C-alpha cells in the first residue's frame, strides 16, 4: 500500500451527517486528519462524538458526505462497493468492542475468515491461522468455539483474525471496552507489540485514558472536531 507524504491516512474536509427522522445530526465537521505510517493513534471523546464514525470512514465501512479520505494513497470514498470490499480484505483489519466472532465457527475458523478471500491454498491458510493465533498466544485454543473462551481470549481471537492477512492498517473500536482491567491490559500489550515490533499502523477508539496511554499519540473528538488536546 503506497502512502501520501509519509501518511498512511490523509483525511481532508470530512463531513458526516446522519438523519434521524426529520432531524439531521452533524457528527463530523470539516475534519482533517493525518496518520503517519506505523503510528499507534488513540481516538478519544465522549459518546456520540463521532469516534466510531471516523473509524468507519477510515476503514471504508461508510462514506463521508463531503471531503476526501485517502488511505495508502487510495481514495477510499470514491471506490465502488465491490472494490471497496476487496480493498478492505487486503488492507484493513478490524477489532470490535464485542469481539464479533462468528459463534458457529471455532477460533481457527474465525481467524481463517479473511484468508478465505485471499488466493491461498488450504495449507497456506492453516499456516497463517497458526501464526496469527501464536502472536496472540492462543495457538492451543484453535478448536474452541467462542462460547468456550473468556472475553479476553475472544478478543485475542478477534485480533488474530484482524492480523491474519497482515493488513497495513488495524482499526480497533473500543477493543478493551468489554473487558476487565487485566484482560484489557493483555489486549493492549498485544496491540503495542504489533505496533512496535511489527510496524503496524493502529487506530484505536477508546473511552479509557489508561488504554489511550499505550498509544503513541492521542487525539480527541468533540462536537465533530478533532484536536490534539483533551477538551475541557
Amino acid at each position, binding site marked *: 500500500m503506497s502512502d501520501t507524504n509519509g501518511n498512511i491516512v490523509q483525511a481532508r474536509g470530512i463531513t458526516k451527517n446522519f438523519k434521524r427522522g426529520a432531524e439531521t445530526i452533524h457528527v463530523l465537521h470539516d475534519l482533517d486528519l493525518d496518520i503517519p505510517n506505523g503510528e499507534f493513534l488513540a481516538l478519544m471523546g465522549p459518546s456520540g462524538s463521532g469516534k466510531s464514525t471516523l473509524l468507519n470512514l477510515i476503514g471504508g*465501512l461508510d462514506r463521508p458526505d463531503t471531503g476526501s479520505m485517502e488511505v495508502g494513497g487510495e481514495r477510499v470514498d470514491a471506490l465502488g462497493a465491490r472494490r471497496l470490499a*476487496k480493498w478492505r*480484505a*487486503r488492507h484493513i483489519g478490524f477489532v*470490535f468492542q*464485542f469481539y464479533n466472532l462468528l459463534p458457529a*465457527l471455532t477460533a481457527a475458523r474465525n481467524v481463517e475468515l479473511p484468508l478465505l478471500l485471499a488466493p491461498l491454498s488450504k495449507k497456506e491458510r492453516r499456516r497463517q491461522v497458526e501464526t496469527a493465533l501464536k502472536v496472540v498466544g492462543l495457538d492451543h485454543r484453535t478448536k474452541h468455539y467462542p462460547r468456550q473462551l473468556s472475553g479476553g481470549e475472544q478478543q485475542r481471537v478477534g485480533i488474530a483474525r484482524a492480523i491474519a492477512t497482515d493488513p497495513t492498517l488495524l482499526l480497533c473500536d473500543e477493543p478493551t471496552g468489554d473487558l476487565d482491567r487485566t484482560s484489557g491490559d493483555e489486549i493492549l500489550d498485544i496491540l503495542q507489540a504489533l505496533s512496535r515490533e511489527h510496524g503496524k499502523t493502529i487506530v484505536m477508539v477508546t473511552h479509557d485514558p489508561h488504554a489511550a496511554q499505550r498509544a503513541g499519540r492521542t487525539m480527541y473528538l468533540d462536537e465533530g472536531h478533532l484536536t490534539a488536546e483533551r477538551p475541557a
Partner: protein
Amino acid sequence: MKYVHLVWSNLKRKKVRTFLTFSSVLVAFLLFGYLSAIETALEQGVSVAGADRLMVRHKVSLIQPLPETYEAQIEQIDGVVDATPATWFGGVYQEPRNFFFQAPVKPREYLAMYPEFLLPEDQLEAWLNTRTGVVVGRAIADRFDWKIGDRVPIQATIWFKRDGSRLWEFDIVGIYDGAEQATDTAQFLFRYDYFDEARQEGARGNVGWYIVRVDDPDRSVEIADAIDERFANSPAETSAETELAFVQGFANQLGNIGKIMTGVLSAVFFTILLVAGNTMAQTVRERIGEIGVIKAIGFTDRQVMGLVLAESLVLAGSAGLVGLGVAAWLISAGDPTGGAFPMFFFPPADMAVGALLAITLGVAAGAFPAMQARRLQVAEALRRK
C-alpha cells in the same frame, strides 16, 4: 468449496429448526413422489395406448356382449390388419380386495396385438398345449408369489360354469414381462376356447370387446367409422374408437382426482415455500451483526448473497432430494393399494421435475433473505448488533 464449512456451520447452529424445516420439505417431496406415482397409475393406460389399435365395444355399454362372429367380419374391413376378442371375467382370487384384470383371450392373436407383452416361446407353447393354462404378468406373479406350475382358483362373479359352479381353476404356464416400465404386467390371461366351452350355454359365443389393429394410424377414425357402419342396425351395434380414446374415457372418470391432487400439491409446495423462506429470513435476521462483520472483513455483497442462497439451497435442495429418494424407495415396493394401481411407479421424468422443483424451492426460499443480506449496509449492520 472453501466456503462449504461456513454454510454447514450455519445450518448446524439451530439444529432443531434446521431439522424441522428439513423434515417439512422432505415430507412435501415424499408426497410429491406418491402423488406422481398415483397420477401416473391413473394415466398410464393413456400414455401407453397403441396408436394403431382400435377398441370395438357394444354401442350401449362395455358390459353388453358382442357376437364372436364379428371378428371375421371386422377383419374384412379395409384397413384392418387383425382383430381379436377379449372379455371382462371379473373373478375373485381368495378375497375381493385382490383385484386384478382377468380376461379370456386367443393366445397368439392377443400377444401379436400386444407386442409389448414379452412371453418366452416355450411358455407360449405350453399355453397353447394346456387348455386350463394361464399367463400372468410379472407384477401379479410377484404380488401373489406365483410360479409356473402353480394352480390358481378363481371364483367367478359373472361367468358361471356349465355345471353351475363358480370355481374356475387355472394352471400357470407362463409369466410375461413388459417391454417398457409402463407396460401393464398385471394381467391374468387365459384361453378363450376353454372359457367358451366351460361357461354356461346361454352365454357362449359372445365376447366383451374386440381389439383391432389397423394398417395406418392416420386412418383410425375412418376405419372406426367403417366398423360401426358395418354393424349399424344390427342387434349388436358397435362403438369403435382408438385405444387412446377408449383408455382416455376411463382416465377421464378419474380426471378430477388428478386435478385435485395437483391442487393439493400446489398448496403443499406453497406452504413449504413459506416455511423454508421464513426459516431463511429468520436466520438472516438473527445474523445481521455477523453479516456486518463478514462484510467488514471484505466479503462482497454478492458473496454474502451467495452464502445465504447456498444455505437455502443446501437445506431445501438436500431435503427435497432426500424426500424424492425416500419416495422412490418406498414406491419401488409396489402398489400400496393391493391392486388398484397395477402400474405404480415413480417415473424418472417426474423425478427430474422433482429435483428441479427442489432446487427452485431452495432458490426461491433463499432469494428474499439473500437480497436483504446483500443490501445490508456494513456500518448499519454493526450498529444493529
